């Protein structure tokens, strides 16, 4: 069952044309745990993340909320409430860094409260000196930090990261990893798609691999509880 600390997904299926990209995928995400999702190009990593963010409709999905079967509209609402998806190349809205951070803050706050939140986020991501810079002109690493700061302002239960350090230099990668560690410390469950697990040595608790539509568990840590009774679940452990 999905609780505040655990998010269970079952029977996740998705096909494109005649190709079954995700075939009865089932897994659980735990608060404060980082789950690496690897796979070849086109294996379905991004599709899986986008479905979990409520951005793409699957053929089927089950999220047990203790309310019986839910239709996609309800599931989508739940996913969008809990999860936040970060693109491989983050999109910056036309405007300053401050404008981009402000976008992530709820409309109910006063102007003063909003500014306070923005200041904290700028501090958190070390972006203070860029607060008035046009966000579209930032470097890849800076955009990634703005994107993480926006996510930090939303305080999602689940962070879905698509190749967060690809095309970043070592310095930017190091800073991005630092921010991801902070999310982890705050208890955010992270599902991180990447080709290269070696980029995240200290961050990863569980390694999953997508292969021909099946989700394969690479190691044997029990931090990540799978529905191992499911017939389509395979483990290499």
């Amino acid at each position: 069952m999905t609780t505040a600390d655990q998010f269970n997904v079952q029977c996740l299926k998705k096909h494109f044309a005649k190709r079954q990209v995700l075939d009865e995928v089932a897994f659980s995400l735990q608060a404060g745990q980082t789950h690496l999702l690897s796979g070849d190009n086109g294996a379905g990593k991004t599709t899986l993340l986008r479905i979990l963010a409520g951005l793409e409709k699957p053929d089927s999905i089950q999220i047990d909320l203790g309310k019986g079967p839910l239709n996609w509209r309800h599931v989508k609402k739940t996913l969008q409430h809990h999860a936040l998806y970060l693109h491989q190349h983050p999109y910056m809205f036309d405007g300053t860094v401050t404008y981009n951070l402000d976008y992530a803050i709820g409309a109910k706050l006063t102007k003063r409260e909003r500014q306070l939140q923005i200041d904290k986020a700028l501090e958190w991501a070390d972006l203070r000196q860029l607060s008035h810079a046009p966000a579209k002109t930032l470097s890849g690493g800076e955009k990634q930090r703005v994107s993480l700061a926006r996510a930090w302002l939303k305080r999602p239960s689940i962070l879905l990261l698509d190749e967060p350090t690809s095309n970043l230099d070592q310095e930017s990668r190091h800073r991005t990893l630092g921010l991801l560690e902070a999310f982890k410390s705050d208890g955010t469950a992270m599902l991180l798609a990447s080709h290269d697990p070696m980029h995240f040595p200290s961050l990863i608790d569980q390694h999953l691999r997508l292969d021909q539509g099946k989700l394969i568990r690479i190691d044997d840590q029990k931090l990540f509880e799978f529905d191992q009774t499911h017939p389509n679940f395979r483990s290499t452990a």
Partner: protein
Amino acid sequence: MLESLPRRNINQMESLTTTTLAALELLFSGNPELWEIIAISFRVSGVAILVASPPALLVAFILAYYQFPGRRLLISINSTLLSVPAVVVGLTLFILLSRQGPLGEWKLLFTQTAMVLGQIALAFPILVAMGHSALQACDRRAWETARTLGATPIRALITIMREARFGLMAALLAAFGRIIAEVGASMMLGGNILHYTRNIPTAIALESSKGEFAQGIALGLVLLILAFTLNAFLQHFQGKGQPA
């Protein structure tokens, strides 16, 4: 029209320069009848754009962001409507609004409202086509980022419109430029009634047919200045944008 001013019959001996100077004199002397015609044009076309834009841009958004059966057909129909002559639009609405027509009871024929309806029909496909292109060119990640950051669909839609504002502004200006300069629908639906439905294009047609080229040129200059101003405004506006 403009009986208070000396009539300037253009004959073959008069030079274009003389006529143009006379037109400028008419324009800048603040002649009330001339400026009333200009005001009617702007009022009718302005209302038409204001009414047509929200639904047209919503249709453009749906065409750009959603896949559904018949989408391609809708795009094709809209593209076809782009090339329908204004006079055909005018004729269609004339038949609908005429006394014997299905909407005859509305008694709208030869009113500014009828002209607005005609101009809406002309502006709508332009707004949809150009709006669709502008929104389709907008990075999809903008919509997804807005939604994943918790924006409601309405807020995300406004965000996308903001991101695509240069293209959308071009659509609005192109549509406005088309309808303020069209003569066919306005003539048929408005009837070219002085002080009421006579706008710039219908006045140009009338004055030229009477040999009053100075008035025609004066009003034509207004359209030229308008076209230049709209384009200059668009260029200035677009120049402030940052590349994605």
